[in-house]
């Protein structure tokens, strides 16, 4: 796995990415109105399933049974997070989009 061993420049680069991402995150999200807090939360929850990318690499490059098991489990749980998160968010947002007056019960 030599491609994953990082030199100093790469560390600094990752640090830069990290810091800038945090700032962008703060900037973008501080403007969300309170009525959309639930979809925002579940939408960003779905994004946190990005760890799926890591899990996919882990299982695809696994050596031996143990790392295969760990990787496969990671893929399963991360996919639950991603798929479930986006579908739930979509269901919620669907309700926000209905025209007033429609679908009275």
């Amino acid at each position, binding site marked *: *796995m030599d491609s*994953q061993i*990082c030199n100093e420049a790469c560390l600094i680069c*990752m640090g830069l*990415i990290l810091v800038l*991402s945090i700032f962008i*995150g703060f900037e*973008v*999200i501080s403007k*969300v109105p*309170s*009525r*959309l*807090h*639930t979809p*925002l*939360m*579940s939408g*960003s*929850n*779905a*994004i*946190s399933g*990005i*760890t*799926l*990318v890591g*899990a*996919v*690499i*882990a*299982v*695809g490059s696994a*050596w031996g049974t143990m790392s*295969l098991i*760990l*990787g*496969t*489990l*990671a*893929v*399963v749980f*991360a*996919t*639950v*997070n*991603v*798929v*479930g*998160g986006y*579908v*739930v968010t979509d269901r*919620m947002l669907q*309700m*926000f*989009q*209905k025209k*007033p007056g429609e679908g*009275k*019960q």
Partner: protein
Amino acid sequence: MNFILLINGTYIVAAVLFIYGLKLLTSPVTARRGNLLSAVGMFLAVVVTLLNEEIIDYRWMLIGIAIGGIIGGLFARLVQMTQMPEMVALFNGSGGLASLLVGWGAYHVMPLAGLFVMTTVFLAVLIGGVTFSGSLIAWGKLSERIPGRPMLFRGQTLLNGVLVIVILIGGSLFLSAPETSYPIFLGIILLSLVLGVMVVIPIGGADMPVVISLLNSYSGIAACAAGLAITNNILIVAGAFVGASGIILTNVMCKAMNRSLYNVLFGGFGAVTKGAAAEVGGEVKAISAQDTYYILEAASAVAFVPGYGLAVSQAQHVLKELGDLLEERGIEVSYAIHPVAGRMPGHMNVLLAEADVPYEKLIEMEQINRRIANIDVCVIIGANDIVNPAAREDTNSSIYGMPIIEVDRSKTVIVLKRSMAPGFAGIDNSLFYKENSRMLFGDAKGSIGEIVAEFKNV
């Protein structure tokens, strides 16, 4: 040939889609498209990762994706809208566990990867573990599988402190010789799971939305740490977005309750009243659905104040019907939304949107409080702590200082409630004994249905 450039280029595209998607979430009109864009970003990121040169075997990964996709998709489709908070908690825990496993896998494969990588592995496992078990407890509390009340015992803070110190010592032992420290590593995983349980059990009551958004933030940070551990940019970027968004949301919730995060996490809301909280007493005046109809009919401005009880009894549709009937008679109707009403941030907005209440009718706390004295009738539906005047009047109350919807200042208050039991926070509510309060006992959906029937009988 290797695909490093293509992969990382696509990661940049994915990151842009995440940012733009979150940006579109700032308006109800574009929000759905925003979520879709963010999903496209995720799809691209995962697909392009398959080109990674280290990946030699696709079988298990595809099986895993299929299983996870089916589970996640089914749950998300089948879940009731009322169960949304606990579902989000469960998904969140799932993401935390995945980060833990990625960290564990990274350590298992390359225990000699150096101090930086091992530090990030340690963080991914620790935060992922806390997120996982914490979310499970939150799920249990929200779905009432375990008691929602804060669970406190003597020396709890001390025990948590010791736990953190032990984890930190374990962490430094592990980092000083990662290749020989497998047992210590497993111990850290175990303790991080215990820590997650310990941090969430003392929290209850109106604090649940805070915990949910905080755990959401943790799951992002865990993904971010996992990204640093395996040197993957998109994990770092997306994890940092989620971490930042969760922290902002947590902060908004804390402000809404006028409490610090420390106080939420360690205060044990609602469990310990500082001794002499004022004795609540007086006479409770019950009212029938028919009399409620007369009061509502004579009013010119009505405000509904919903709480978790609205979600429990699924009364949002019949409430909308009642609102429409009132409006047909020229009565001004508004829905007063407290920022922490319900069990997750923005819970009431989702429920009322489900019943097609137009969002211009949802009035935020500060605005409604400004004109609450001019409102003839406030109808409280399954809300308790967020309208408790003790927050303003009783310096000994555990909710003292929390901003509330000041319904007691309106002309008449009608409280829809199943019984006199105290709210989720476990404190008595002096509102029920006020001169201008009337109690309409029964299930919210049934009670509102009866009022609607009265309107229709005329």
